[in-house]
């Protein structure tokens, strides 16, 4: 339901999880110690091994190169940002101090973090509630409605983009954060699907026992389903946090007309790219764009380190139970 839902980025994220779960069965468990060695396609010859490791390292360098380049460029003085040397000739760590004066980066970061937290919390809670409804209860038209949930994933965001803008405009919320996360309060198709899969895996007896002990339906969800689904809850949270952090288009639609301080991080960087454009007007102070780009990447790297652990833990718990 969120604006970001049908963005290419979100579609890819979806692909990743649906792909793992629906297309190829349970997620891979290569990080578990119990994994059987015969599932690896290990090369047998020495030459095979050497070629493999050369290729692996080559691609690792290829993927890391832009990061190193970015880090290096962020430490260079104005005139050297474009010189491609990975070791700055002149170190200017001051860029990291100066950038906060040059750009309202602190506001952008604050806005983005607040919006991403709201978006991720709202969508994770709402999707869990809805998913529990679909997983636990039997009611007329349930499968039809769930089919509709899945069908909404096919809808390109462009179709609902304009009406949603008009809805928010009608309520008078253009220029506020609300359009960037408000629709998440109603859950989001992909996450409902994900959480429902998890709830369906919980043994029914668990809930029946609680029912006999007098738990209400809400109690079943709140005290049994929710605590048990924390791993998948965190996956949803992390995915939506990333999607929100990355969401340029919604910020362009809803915040671009406001003051620069009200921008989100992606909108802010896009603005800075134009402000210090290297193509128009030669060598501008592009090092600040580099510093800012690096700084807004750090939360994602942190959440990746954090999320990856939970993801593996979640898979591990499921595996033990199964």
């Amino acid at each position: 339901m969120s604006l970001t839902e049908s963005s290419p980025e979100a579609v890819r994220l979806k692909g990743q999880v649906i792909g793992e779960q629906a297309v190829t069965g349970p997620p891979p468990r290569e990080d578990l110690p119990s994994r059987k060695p015969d599932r690896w396609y290990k090369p047998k010859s020495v030459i095979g091994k050497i070629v493999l490791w050369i290729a692996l390292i080559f691609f690792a360098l290829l993927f890391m190169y832009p990061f190193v380049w970015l880090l290096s460029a962020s430490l260079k003085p104005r005139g050297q940002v474009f010189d491609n040397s990975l070791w700055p000739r002149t170190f200017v760590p001051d860029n990291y101090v100066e950038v906060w004066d040059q750009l309202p980066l602190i506001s952008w970061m604050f806005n983005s973090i607040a919006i991403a937290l709201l978006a991720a919390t709202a969508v994770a809670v709402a999707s869990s509630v809805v998913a529990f409804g679909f997983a636990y209860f039997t009611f007329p038209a349930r499968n039809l409605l769930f089919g509709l949930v899945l069908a909404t994933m096919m809808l390109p965001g462009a179709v609902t983009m304009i009406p949603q803008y008009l809805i928010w405009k009608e309520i008078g919320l253009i220029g506020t954060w609300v359009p960037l996360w408000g629709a998440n309060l109603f859950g989001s198709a992909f996450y409902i699907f994900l959480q429902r899969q998890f709830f369906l895996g919980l043994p029914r007896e668990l809930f029946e026992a609680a029912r006999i002990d007098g738990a209400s339906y809400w109690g079943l969800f709140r005290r049994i389903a929710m605590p048990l689904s924390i791993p998948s809850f965190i996956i949803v949270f992390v995915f939506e946090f990333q999607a929100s952090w990355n969401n340029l288009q919604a910020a362009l639609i809803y915040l671009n007309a406001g003051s620069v301080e009200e921008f989100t991080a992606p909108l802010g960087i896009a603005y800075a790219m134009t402000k210090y454009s290297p193509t128009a007007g030669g060598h501008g102070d592009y090092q600040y764009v580099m510093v800012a780009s690096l700084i807004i990447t750090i939360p994602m790297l942190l959440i990746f380190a954090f999320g990856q652990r939970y993801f593996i833990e979640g898979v591990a718990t499921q595996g033990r139970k199964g």
Partner: protein
Amino acid sequence: MTTAVRRDGPAPAPVSRRVKRKAAFRSKYNRRESIAGYLFIAPWIIGFLVFTLGAMVYSLVISFSDYNLARNTATPVGFANYAQLFEDPKVGLSLMNTLVYALMAVPLEIAFALFLAMLLARVGKGAGFFRTVYYLPKMTPTVATASVFLLLLNGNSGAINKGLEVIGIQGPQWLVDPAWVKPSIVLMTLWTVSGTMVIFLAALKNVPRDLYEVASLDGAGPVRQFFAITIPMISSAIFFNLIVLTIAAFQTFDQAYLLFWRDQSNASPESSLFYAVYLFQQAFRQFNFGFAAAMAWLLFMIIMLITFIQMKFGNRFVYYEGDDH
């Protein structure tokens, strides 16, 4: 079944079908449970009615109107916006750009992701480390990626062309030469291909190892094994990625916008005008809501059509486990 009529005993009093159906309905659904179920899914239903179904109907209405944003009025104009789709050369142009991009990006993404997954599937213990490294670009915000690639792809001073120079190739003007703008975006997309890679990695791990052993006993070399075992066994993952990546390619916005259409000067080559970018410009720069809504519906139709064709023809080549064919 609960609807079955008792055969023995005294004939039941004649009951209308309606009553019978009602009784069956009651025994199947518990009233309290049904109400609770609806309450739990209520947030989604409300959201669906307002932000999806309501929005779709609204969008359809707008696509047949001339929407005046200042006065909030929609004047019906019939099919004028749809007719405009054929008159405006930029619609066809941007559609063609997007199509060409998709035809370049999707096969390359699948091939590259599969190649990387096959490398990772061969590592053993080090896989976790390499998978993390390969995955990091995926975590990088697109704006950060774009701000770096804008410099890396620079035709004169960019690292990519400097690198090509080393091996004796004169690199193109990636961001300026109309023929090279789409390959630039493809390069950026390939750098973040690891999501697709992870799916392939999972699929590869599910291929039974003994198939390869049997094949190599029969004298099949690695190439033969790849085409006769690997490809068919992971065909459902390939098919899935094909559909998802195609849908994503048709909606590509961020990369094209950031590299070429950030500032509103029209200095960028027209071959970089992607459909989603032109739609966005029409909607939120020109505020031609009616026309933009018609463009959105055309995009929807095209995506549906392509997905349908892929499903129709792709399914024949997909092997599903437990399938007899």
